[in-house]
């Protein structure tokens, strides 16, 4: 057997142990007693919406958040226009009221906009919300309940894609759905280490004590979540609180987004590398190491496969020429065709384990969607995910690793 086959089997083995660990965690999390605020106890919240050139979505974002069923005397929205060149500011100002404040500043990046708003916030709980995120009325209230536990410094929602269309958005939708399961499993061992910038809640005192957003960081949300974990606090997950974001629907913007996320993940993980330590419990000894081992194995294997296929292209082409591109002669559907195909599939451990993982992930996604409501075209989305995600994932990571290795600057756009 070759080294690569051993590596594939090692990945499968680690994947099986990790998957089992998370399934057990998912089930045990149901039994975990959570301290939750009742309706009467809900604290004051501030929702910060930094916006840069978001004229297409800002109105709907503001409308969705002010429709929240949160006590209005404990609720404020601060829109920060980060020097937009379009009509973002003009549209936002139409919503100015007792609840909605609109600030404007010179363009300086998301971190600067968030920090500016943090100074003006009156809430005990701070929500950060992207200007292309939409939430149903219940999300703010349900997320805020988790802050009754004083150890909780952040709460994350169930992030989903807003009305996914086309191949790329469907792939991302499946990825987000899978993320719901993982998030719940991570929360069972206090190992959530990513709070989505699109919509997350934080305790104000954490900012007071540990400072505001790192304005030079390209993934300021990720930096904040690792900072919370590094300081030894808890990040909770509220599965009953969906938040919908508009996902890139073209390859280039998606590539740019992922390059930013993954380079940010690498740089911030390095910054907080001390978390890889037994004193951080399950996060330090299992969750983060397994996540990184899985990433490196996946990236290596996907690149190996792609390179191998590229080398085989010439061989395959000359073969096709040699048979005059007569594809029907390649298949040869005879009386034993299906029997042999079935034998070949079920005799190969890699295919068998792939089918097992695919089934488990499909069930994950189905379970994960129980609390967020019906997800349209779920079976098709899962199929699209399995066909394309690995390839895209390998590509995004490879590009990001090159950027980090060459210390290249990564920008938002």
């Amino acid at each position: 057997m070759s080294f690569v086959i051993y590596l594939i089997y090692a990945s499968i083995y680690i994947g099986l142990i990790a998957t089992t660990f998370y399934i057990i965690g998912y089930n045990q999390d149901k039994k975990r007693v959570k301290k939750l605020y009742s309706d009467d106890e809900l604290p004051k919240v501030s929702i910060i919406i930094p916006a840069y050139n978001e004229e297409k979505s800002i109105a709907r974002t503001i409308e969705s958040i002010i429709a929240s069923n949160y006590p209005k005397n404990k609720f404020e929205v601060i829109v920060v226009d980060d020097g937009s060149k379009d009509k973002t500011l003009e549209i936002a100002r139409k919503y100015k009221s007792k609840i909605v404040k609109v600030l404007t500043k010179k363009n300086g990046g998301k971190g600067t906009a968030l920090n500016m708003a943090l100074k003006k916030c009156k809430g005990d709980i701070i929500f950060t919300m992207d200007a292309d995120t939409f939430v149903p009325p219940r999300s703010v209230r349900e997320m805020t309940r988790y802050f009754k536990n004083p150890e909780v410094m952040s709460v994350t929602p169930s992030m989903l894609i807003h009305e996914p269309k086309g191949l790329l958005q469907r792939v991302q939708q499946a990825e987000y759905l899978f993320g719901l399961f993982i998030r719940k499993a991570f929360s069972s061992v206090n190992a959530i280490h990513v709070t989505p910038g699109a919509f997350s809640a934080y305790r104000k005192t954490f900012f007071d004590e540990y400072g505001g957003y790192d304005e030079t960081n390209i993934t300021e949300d990720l930096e904040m979540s690792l900072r919370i974990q590094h300081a030894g606090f808890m990040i909770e997950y509220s599965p009953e609180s969906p938040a919908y974001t508009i996902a890139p629907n073209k390859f280039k913007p998606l590539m740019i987004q992922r390059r930013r996320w993954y380079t940010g993940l690498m740089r911030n993980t390095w910054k907080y590398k001390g978390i890889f330590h037994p004193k951080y419990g399950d996060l330090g000894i299992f969750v983060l190491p397994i996540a990184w081992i899985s990433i490196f194995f996946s990236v290596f294997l996907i690149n190996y496969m792609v390179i191998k296929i590229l080398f085989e292209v010439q061989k395959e082409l000359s073969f096709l020429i040699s048979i005059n591109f007569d594809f029907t002669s390649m298949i040869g559907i005879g009386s034993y065709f299906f029997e042999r195909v079935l034998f070949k599939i079920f005799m190969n451990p890699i295919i068998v384990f792939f089918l097992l993982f695919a089934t488990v992930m499909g069930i994950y996604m189905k379970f994960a969607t129980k609390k967020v409501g019906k997800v349209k075209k779920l079976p098709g989305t899962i199929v699209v995910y399995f066909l394309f995600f690995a390839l895209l994932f390998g590509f995004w990571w490879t590009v990001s690793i090159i950027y980090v290795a060459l210390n290249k600057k990564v920008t938002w756009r």
Partner: protein
Amino acid sequence: MEPRKIQSKKRYLWAFIIGTAIFVIGFAFTNMVAYLQFQRVASLQDPTSYQIFQDKLQYSLFGEDICAENTYIKISQDLTFQGQVIGDLENKLGLDNKNVLFRKRFYTLIQLEHFEFVKLINEECNKNINSILFFYSNKKTDLENSEKLGNILGPIYQRNKENLVLYSLDLNLDSDIMRNLREKYDVGEESVVIVNEEHRLTKINHVSEVEQYLE
């Protein structure tokens, strides 16, 4: 900060036990499928050889008409499938697996029996059923060329399966009959394709190079 405790050591233990069990069961399952495949070949080889044997005896002892039906076509399909499955089993269980080697030797005998029967049909029935003897090698030195020849012969068989029978023979098979065959057809250490017992090819770049010799 105060060091965090691991939430549940039992969870790690269970994850390790269950994960390992699934891993082992997965491999056991694929080996079970390989065993089923092995049994399938065994269950096909006996009736195939019996059928060929019976047809030949019916003809030689009782002069039964062997031209009436194209019985050889069904047998040929069985043979092709058996060859493919033996190839799969070699990949799965290894080239040195004794059980697979036994089936391969038996398969070689059935193929040769069939080859003789087809020659008889051609003579007695005035037919032109083509035959290709493909002596392949699993040795590293010739594996690439052998695979290339095999890949091209597959489609040639599919395009002409109404009047073509393809016999795949491992030239490194440790058996007296294979040694004699190699001597008869002057086969060395490299893969060779022999069309209708006349035309020798060691390299094939296009289907036409073989099909030009088919009748």
